Each structure stands twice: as structure tokens, then as C-alpha cells.
């Protein structure tokens, strides 16, 4: 059975990604109200990404290493762990810091973003990077899950 923590980790990560997509949209044509909303949404997105980090990290340390990793490493797709999972588990650590950065920009420049076009563009770019990296991590997770399932099927005969 799929461990519920995988679903919780993925769902929280997706909520975090959606929050920063929302921030991006709010900043396309900013008004005072939109910036205020973007600030709240960025904070929520940061919380989602931190919780996703914790739930994914707990699953990785408590279950993945002892149950899934050996299965994938012994399969015909060892690269799913040795490349994909190794990259995924480390790139994931970047997201909460990026999210905290966007949140801090929105908190500190909330009254200036309508005038500060460069800062607004930069905030949008970093938000897009958060969304892109989150989607990439979801895709990498899909590859790892598929490899684990294939390894289990082979083992079961």
C-alpha cells in the first residue's frame, strides 16, 4: 500500500507551488489589495513548503531508506534512486529558503512594489522558479514511485 505520508508530502508541495503561482498572478498587475493578498498567500505557501519538507523528510528517513531504496537499487532501474532520488531529496531543500525570500520581499516592499518595477519582476521570476522546481520535484517523485512499483511487480513475479 502507498504510504499516506507520500500523499501528504505531495499535496503540501503542490499547495505550496499553487500559492506561488497565485503570487505571480497577483503581481502581474499589482494594486495595493493584490500585493496585500500576495503577501498572505506567499506566507501560506512558505508554510506549506516547510510542512512538505518535514513530511517528505520523515518518510524519506523512516521508510524510504530501509524499504524502497534497496528495492530500486536492486532493480533494472537503479538510476531512479542513484540519480533521480538523490537529486530530488537535495533540490527539495532549496524551496523553503526561496519561499522565505519571496515572503520577505512582499513583507518589506509591500508599499513600494507598485512603483518598484524591477523588484516586482524579480519577485515574479523567483515565484516562477519555485513553481517550476516544485513541478520538477513532483515529476521526479513520479519517476521514483514508478520505478519502485515496477521493482515490486518484478519481485512478485
Amino acid at each position, binding site marked *: 500500500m502507498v504510504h499516506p505520508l507520500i500523499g501528504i508530502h505531495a499535496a503540501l508541495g503542490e499547495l505550496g507551488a499553487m500559492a506561488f503561482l497565485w503570487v505571480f498572478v497577483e503581481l502581474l498587475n499589482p494594486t495595493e489589495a493584490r500585493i496585500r493578498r500576495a503577501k498572505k498567500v506567499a506566507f501560506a505557501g512558505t508554510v506549506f513548503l516547510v510542512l512538505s519538507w518535514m513530511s517528505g523528510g520523515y518518510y524519506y528517513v523512516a521508510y524510504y531508506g530501509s524499504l524502497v531504496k534497496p528495492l530500486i537499487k536492486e532493480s533494472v532501474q*537503479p*538510476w531512479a534512486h*542513484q540519480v533521480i532520488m538523490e537529486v530530488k531529496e537535495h533540490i527539495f531543500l532549496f524551496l523553503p529558503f526561496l519561499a522565505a525570500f519571496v515572503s520577505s520581499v512582499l513583507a518589506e516592499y509591500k508599499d513600494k512594489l507598485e512603483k518598484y518595477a524591477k523588484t516586482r519582476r524579480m519577485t515574479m521570476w*523567483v515565484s516562477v522558479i519555485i513553481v517550476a522546481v516544485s513541478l520538477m520535484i513532483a515529476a521526479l517523485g513520479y519517476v521514483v514511485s514508478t520505478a519502485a512499483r515496477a521493482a515490486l511487480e518484478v519481485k512478485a513475479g
Partner: protein
Amino acid sequence: MKVNRIGTGAIWAIISVTGMTIIGELVKPVKDVLAAATGHHWITKSVLAVIVFLLIAVTGRKKTLSDKGAYVLGMKVAVAVIVCIIALFAFFVWEFLK
């Protein structure tokens, strides 16, 4: 906390995760130390990255950035993320193929 402190903290946290990961894979005793410190290398890297981030976010130089200054800092954050992602991908592909 100021944006310049948090941005700089984010850059160094990201670089430290990438550095610890690559050095840990190349120098086994480093990975062993990382694993022994908390019971798992990934937890130690996470904790150290948070410590690096908080140290800079709390004690870094306090400065209010101009529009251009904030833009430049954000671009540095973006470049750090992209370069570190490429470095990790390239490193683990190379490790797998060698």
C-alpha cells in the same frame, strides 16, 4: 529581518546543501560524519542549511535595498538555484555513469 539578509541567507543555504552533498559523495568520511551527527546525512544537511540561513538572516548586514539592489539580489538567488540544480544533476549522472 531584512530582504538582503534573507536573500543572502537563502543563497548560502542553497550553496551549502549543494557543497555538502557533492563533497560528502566524493569524500566518504565527510558523509559518515554527516550521517553520524544526527543519524542521517539528509537530516544533518537540512539542519546545517537552516543554521546557515538563520545565522545570515539574523546577523547579516542590515541594509534597505533600492529597486535595483533588490532586483540584483533576487537574480543572484535565481542564478544560485539554477546553477546548484544543474550541478547536482550533472554530479549524480556522472557518479552513476563512472
